[in-house]
């Protein structure tokens, strides 16, 4: 029995989470230090402590820190939304965009860009588009009968295909000089992220809602009927998951466009290492997703500086080899 007890404490020990917190902090420091003007650790420490070069302080506190925090918050939201969608649809291949949410946001954002609206209005349009797509998919999947994960998934996939066609159409009819901005938005870009507090607040709020549900989500992952037989009120839980994942994704897409890969792969990578206990996976997703996007964004703005790359390209280029490596190594 003592063996079993030590296995339990090992199963629940905070080890991997502590490492992920460390990695998150490190990624923030790297994001602060690197850029058009690289700072030495001493200069970084001085500027953060409130003295040192005034120019450095402005650079850090007004440019790099908000962007690094926004990247962290956005990555955290996307990874959490991906993990929730995978449980909701009982499909490990689901990502935050699988139900057409980024498509709706993209179409609305591109229309706003075509109309020549400013950054704030483009973001507002993206948020409205994301929520509209969510409601359409949910309404249609509900239909006249009961909705099942498969029906929800199919409705979402078909809607996403429809949005994809509209996006291609909008790109085809847009004037050439607007295309780069549109493409960057579609691939994800943190240059116009603005204040990091909305994403960070939503990430904290999402975690607060989801953490007490952790064990219940573990049971739901075994299937709706099995969960119901173990005392889970499945329908209200699925509504909560759907609305939360949609809201969280909408906020992320509004902040930084539709960044791919993070939401699909981060939960997977963590599951390969940590198992599928949501009480560990969900906080780990926030930390690892945030860390990955912070590093990716740092690379995106430094690799071929002064030109910036879309961060979605970097997330995929960083993520694909590390994911394949983990998959190859796993039993």
């Amino acid at each position, binding site marked *: 029995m003592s063996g079993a007890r030590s296995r339990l404490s090992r199963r629940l020990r905070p080890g991997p989470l502590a490492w992920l917190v460390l990695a998150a902090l490190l990624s923030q420091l790297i994001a602060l230090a690197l850029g058009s003007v690289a700072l030495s650790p001493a200069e970084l420490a001085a500027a953060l402590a409130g003295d040192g070069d005034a120019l450095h302080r402005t650079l850090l506190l007004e440019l790099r820190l908000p962007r690094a925090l926004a990247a962290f918050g956005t990555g955290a939201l996307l990874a959490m939304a991906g993990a929730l969608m995978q449980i909701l649809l009982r499909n490990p291949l689901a990502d935050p965009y699988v139900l057409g949410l980024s498509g709706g946001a993209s179409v609305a954002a591109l229309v706003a860009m075509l109309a020549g609206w400013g950054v704030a209005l483009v973001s507002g349009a993206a948020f409205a588009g994301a929520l509209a797509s969510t409601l359409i998919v949910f309404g249609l999947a509900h239909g006249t009968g009961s909705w099942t994960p498969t029906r929800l998934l199919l409705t979402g996939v078909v809607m996403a295909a429809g949005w994809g066609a509209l996006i291609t159409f909008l790109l085809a009819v847009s004037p050439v000089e607007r295309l780069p901005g549109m493409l960057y938005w579609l691939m994800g870009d943190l240059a116009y992220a603005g204040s990091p507090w909305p994403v960070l607040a939503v990430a904290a709020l999402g975690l607060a809602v989801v953490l007490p549900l952790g064990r219940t989500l573990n*049971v739901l992952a075994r299937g709706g009927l099995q969960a119901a037989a173990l005392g889970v009120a499945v329908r209200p839980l699925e509504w909560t998951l759907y609305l939360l994942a949609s809201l969280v994704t909408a906020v992320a897409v509004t902040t930084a466009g539709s960044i791919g890969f993070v939401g699909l792969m981060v939960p997977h990578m963590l599951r390969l290492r940590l198992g599928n206990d949501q009480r560990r996976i969900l906080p780990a997703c926030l930390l690892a997703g945030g860390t990955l996007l912070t590093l990716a964004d740092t690379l995106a703005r430094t690799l071929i500086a002064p030109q910036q790359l879309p961060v979605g390209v970097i997330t995929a280029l960083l993520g694909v080899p590390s994911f394949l490596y983990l998959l190859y190594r796993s039993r």
Partner: protein
Amino acid sequence: MGALETRQLVIDIPGRAGGRPLDLRVGTGERWGVLGPNGAGKTTLLHTLAGLRAPRSGEVRLDGDPLSRLRRRALARRLGLVFQDRHDDFPATVRETALIGRHPFLSPWQQEGPEDLARAEAALARLDLTHLAERGLATLSGGERQRVSLATVLTQAPRVWLADEPTNHLDLHHQVAVMGLLAEQANRGCAVMMCLHDLNLAARWCDHVLLLYPDGEACWGAADAMLVPAALERLYGQPLTTAMVDGAPVFVPRT
């Protein structure tokens, strides 16, 4: 009063006009076998009794309380169901899977404690699974996976056991072991109801039998009154030969 009772219950099978309303009383200590051909509604009946499907009419009562008035969590503390199908889309170990049987007993913030773990370990030991505790579900054979499902419900320790073909995929030794486990639960004061395809297991291990016909007709009663060749041949549309072995009837299909 039975532990599990149905009143004028008609289960909801799509495309079936109606059927005989069921007035069952499954008492504590009783072992019920549900027999019927494919598609007769055995699984639907168990799911209806577990409150997972709404009946077309009538009601189910657990210790006198209508299921519709019980909260799901309260129900799960008293009634457990061994599923025929399972969905292992996500990785999980055998131990974790047994441990989810404690879910209805824990509050949202509560971690599984040593006592919960001890129950899961005991259930795994009872089903010969201790050596597989750390294994992933995906690596198990069909029979091993079936025993894990039973271990989950054993960890849940309900007073009413519903088991949908509990001997599926099991070798002969484990078939007998699992029927012995269910009999042991009944002897401890549980009510047990199981769907079976093996008439001989039903004849040996069940004291009550419910025969479900494809057209919705049904009859039920003491096992020795139900398990008569004429009724069984009509049930399955299959001629049978009967022999007596060790004082119990053995049914063999005739070709």
